[in-house]
């Protein structure tokens, strides 16, 4: 469902016989503005418009009866293509427990999302546990413990550093026959070499099956740098886009998928522990187009 507003960009392209390469270019300039206002990365937008341009001014479109509709369709489909497949599942370990690390910048929603993931998997009858590996933020462990007790799952906190807490949690989860252990980590800047190394060590020591990057839906142009650094230094398996219950268009997700090549697995849609949903690329594309 593409908004009226977006479709209006192409109203002049709807009259057959009046289409020129120039007015397609003008319409695509409008699309560029729409995407930039939705916080899609500048370079990604330029490349995207370039690709669309080739397809749009191709002979088939110019001759078709509904050229405007055709261009909209191309834009929408190309955007969906950039967002990857829908409803991607978590890689489950062959021998339990499956270890999931939740990582990302400060304040993105990792702790809340870790608890949401527990609720999501518990509903599917998996036995879950949480690991409180954020030893820096005041009351971070307490925050996870409060959420863990709301969900009636254990929260492992033993260890004198983050990596030890993570490895101890995996050992305990295995001993207790938990299917999944979700590790909440401290927020950290992608440029903080020491803290990024901590994640690399943690991933190696726990043999984590899934490293999920939590990204705030309101993130702007910086999304490219964040995603690139997390992917190059740590390696991620998927993305969770949070705070989608607001009015952020969420174009940062395009940058993240384009740069990492990894799919968005879930979206966070509110502060409650039920507010985790599967990701649907077509819905996201419509939202970005405004």
């Amino acid at each position, binding site marked *: 469902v593409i908004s009226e507003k977006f479709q209006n960009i192409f109203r002049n392209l709807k009259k057959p016989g009046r289409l020129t390469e120039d007015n397609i270019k003008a319409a695509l300039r409008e699309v560029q503005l729409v995407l930039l206002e*939705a916080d899609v990365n500048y370079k990604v937008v330029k490349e995207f418009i370039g690709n669309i341009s080739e397809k749009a001014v191709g002979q088939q479109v110019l001759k078709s009866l509904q050229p405007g509709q055709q261009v909209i369709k191309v834009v929408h489909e190309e955007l969906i293509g950039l967002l990857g497949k829908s409803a991607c599942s978590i890689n489950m370990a062959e021998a339990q427990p499956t270890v999931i690390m939740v990582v990302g910048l400060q304040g993105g929603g990792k702790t809340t999302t870790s608890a949401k993931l527990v609720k999501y998997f518990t509903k599917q009858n998996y036995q879950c546990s949480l690991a409180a590996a954020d030893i820096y933020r*005041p009351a971070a462990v307490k925050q996870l*413990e409060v959420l863990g007790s709301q969900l009636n799952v254990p929260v492992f906190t033993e260890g004198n550093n983050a990596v030890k807490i993570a490895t101890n949690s995996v050992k305990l989860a295995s001993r207790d026959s938990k299917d999944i252990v979700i590790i909440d980590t401290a927020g950290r*800047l992608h440029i903080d070499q020491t803290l990024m190394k901590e994640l690399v060590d943690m991933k190696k020591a726990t043999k984590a099956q899934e490293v999920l990057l939590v990204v705030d839906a*309101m993130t*702007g142009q910086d999304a490219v740098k964040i995603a690139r650094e997390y992917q190059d230094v740590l390696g991620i398996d998927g993305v969770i886009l949070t*705070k989608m219950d607001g009015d952020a268009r969420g174009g940062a997700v395009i940058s993240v998928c384009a740069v990492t090549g990894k799919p968005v697995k879930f979206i966070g849609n509110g502060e409650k522990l039920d507010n985790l949903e599967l990701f649907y690329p077509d819905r996201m594309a419509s939202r970005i187009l405004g």
Partner: protein
Amino acid sequence: VFGTGPRLEYEILEKLEELLVTADVGVRTTQKIINNLENSIHNIDKNDFQAILHALERELLNVFERNNQREILPQHQSTECKGTPRIILAIGVNGVGKTTSIAKIAHRYKTQGKDILLVAADTFRAAANEQIEILANRANLELVKSQYGADPASVLYDGIISAEKTKKDVVLVDTAGRLHTKVNLMEEIKKMNRVIRKNIHSSNIEVLLIIDSTAGHNAVYQARSFSENLGATGIMLTKLDGTAKGGMVVAIEDELEIPVKLVGIGEGIDDIEDFVPADFVKAILY
């Protein structure tokens, strides 16, 4: 409408557009600024990119120079409203750094010898009380809090009364994160604002909107909505120690005229600085 300045080459315009948009200045504000630039540059070598950047720097500074009041809780204009306590209310969407920032400001006042009181008015989020309590204890700051789930307006009221009784200089109030699109949460913060205004003179109130420098266009929507609902008197821009430039405050100052007063440059209690437009603009352009 053609200006009197030279029209710049397409390649140069693209370069300037990329520079500003990737700094999150926002696409419409970028267009406006570049148009102003073309209308204002005279006697400039169209091929001298450094000279053009310098002119762009001036154009950006023009936006900031419209707002000269960048002091938190500025000095009183007259003596009649000199009562205590003065109050700072930290508001903003989820996760931007309100709790950390209000603690930084409180610590700063304390080191200046002021008597301050922190009020833990986030009664909603898990371990919010515990988080601010640890920050308060570390910095030796007095704290008023209530139980989890209490009415935040009544915790705020208790804090104001306590501060009046004990003759505090400044009350600093932390609030729960809230998306500006949530009507009931905006009503809650409006109610808290009314409680403050019933008890404290407006010249003694700072409504500080906390904005995350990694935010894109949504920051402008946040500022617009919080401003319409409450009237923000200032902005603190957090997480500038990352790679984000925080350019959306250019749009906010240009369209809403809310001055950026402080910046957060890290997670430590001292990681706070006054906002300096010249430094901020240089960081975007060079």
